[in-house]
């Protein structure tokens, strides 16, 4: 690919893979293996990290970065709505459980 | 707007079909949700005793509501016909229109009429054996939700036609909405397996979310069919956009932008 190689896109990929590997760290912080315990912190953290990745995918891979402001704001709003909905559902489940 | 030779407005017939479609869906909503209260559906985990209680609780609603459907249910044909017409107006092969027509005409029997028949049979003789009532209950609800496959393929046919169409009968985003609708039909498939939970025939996912999507989808296509009729020029080429005076300036701008 020589001179046409897009460094930025490759770095984005590295960052995304890095965040994915960070999940393993998150998992081990609870002592992975056979004993699993519930953790709101891990749940919210995992969802948050996932949404960070989603936004990166949209901005960089899906080229929303170059899109009109309306689309940029719409996709950001989507990510925010997803965050609120998911964390809200989880919180609701915990309080009503 | 009149046609030549003093003939009555050719669009009048299309409008008749459109109003009949609106009437049908309104009837459908009122009968199923209010009169018979078969939607939201009864619980799948009910034993024969609970089912017998359900039937006696819904007795009159079932008989009255479904009697209405038996008389007026034929109106559903106008909805199918209008959609078929819209596909014929497209630049794609007429095979799409015919396939859609056949599929939906057939789908109406298990997907729509079975529940009417099953529930009416159940309600007809209140002293019936609860085990038999439960059989009818299962048949009714499962056939209503579980025969989604035909509707799924129908949605995909409409979607493909819209995406290939060069006459701009429908906006492309509606083509994709057909895909969303088709996928929600897939989601209902597990209702054959589960007696409870989110994927049962009354579940949060298989019923509630599905109904929201289906409701939006229906509202959208009824609106788009109306726009199609307004724009119809009875030609074979691309449908003209709505003139600014017939719709708001915002709509016209969106139409141009989407073209």
């Amino acid at each position, binding site marked *: 690919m020589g001179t046409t190689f897009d460094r930025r896109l490759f770095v984005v990929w590295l960052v995304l893979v890095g965040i994915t590997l960070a999940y393993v760290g998150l998992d081990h912080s609870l002592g992975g293996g056979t004993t699993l315990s519930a953790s709101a912190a891990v749940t919210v953290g995992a969802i948050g990290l996932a949404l960070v990745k989603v936004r990166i995918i949209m901005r960089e891979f899906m080229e929303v970065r170059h*899109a009109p402001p309306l689309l940029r704001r719409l996709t950001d709003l989507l990510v925010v709505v997803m965050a609120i909905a*998911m964390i809200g559902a989880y919180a609701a489940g915990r309080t009503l459980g | 707007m009149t046609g030549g030779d003093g003939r009555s407005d050719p669009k009048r017939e299309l409008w008749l079909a459109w109003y009949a479609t609106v009437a049908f869906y309104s009837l459908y909503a009122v009968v199923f949700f209010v009169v018979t209260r078969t939607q939201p559906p009864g619980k799948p985990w009910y034993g024969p005793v609970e089912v017998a209680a359900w039937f006696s609780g819904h007795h009159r609603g079932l008989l009255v509501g479904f009697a209405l459907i038996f008389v007026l249910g034929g109106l559903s044909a106008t909805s199918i016909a209008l959609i078929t017409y819209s596909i014929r107006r497209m630049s794609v092969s007429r095979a799409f229109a015919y396939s859609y027509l056949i599929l939906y005409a057939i789908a109406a029997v298990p997907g729509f009429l079975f529940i009417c028949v099953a529930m009416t049979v159940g309600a007809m003789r209140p002293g019936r054996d609860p085990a038999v009532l439960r059989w009818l209950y299962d048949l009714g609800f499962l056939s209503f939700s579980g025969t989604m496959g035909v509707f799924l393929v129908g949605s995909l046919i409409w979607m493909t036609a819209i995406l290939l169409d060069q006459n701009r009968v429908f906006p492309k985003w509606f083509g994709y909405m057909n895909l969303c609708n088709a996928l929600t039909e897939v*989601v209902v498939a597990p209702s054959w397996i589960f007696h409870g939970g989110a994927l049962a025939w009354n579940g949060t996912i298989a019923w509630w979310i599905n109904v929201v999507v289906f409701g939006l989808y229906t509202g959208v296509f009824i609106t788009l069919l109306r726009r199609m009729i307004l724009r119809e020029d009875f030609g074979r080429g691309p449908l003209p956009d709505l003139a600014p005076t017939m719709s708001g300036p915002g709509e016209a701008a969106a139409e141009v932008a989407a073209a």
Partner: protein
Amino acid sequence: MTSAGGGTAVAAATGPATGSGHVPGQPDMWFFVVFESLIFTSYFCVYLFHRARHEGAFLQGQSHLVLWLGVLDTVVLLTSSWAVARCVQHARAGRHRPALRAAVLTAACGLAFLALKLVEWARLIHMGRTFTSSEFFQFYFFLTGIHLVHLLIGFVVLGVLVRRLSDRERPSQQAVETCATYWHTVDFFWVLIFALLYVVR
């Protein structure tokens, strides 16, 4: 990741200038992206709600999943997204052959994901964990299943992309971008599903 100063020179060579206001692909496809995302979000909310109410049972089921397989799945799809993004860049610059190669790489990653998923399912079913064995697995198979359907549709979409790429008569950058946009949804839905099924506690 906000558009910081650094990469604009590279971006100019391979893409439209930042803030140029170019909508990637058909705007209509973005309707699908948003609408389908909202539908998936509602599924995720149902899952999270049920999970929070039966933490123990869900943790039990989750312990049978292999995190590394999930990580591998994710990396494979991230790579496929990277590949299809490269395809769009190549196509835009008129580099037909590299674009085609990138599209093939995308499909290959998709197939790899499919294979991994089937292996994972087979393993679980062999262990006795099926669609109906517990609430967790009901959601697991449902979410991964509906995602797989999206992936399979993605193969059809890639087919359309390749056809439009190869069509010298009516070249359409927009069609290529539209197909790529669809493919990216397959990727980011998985990113979310992975976090929810494999990591969330």
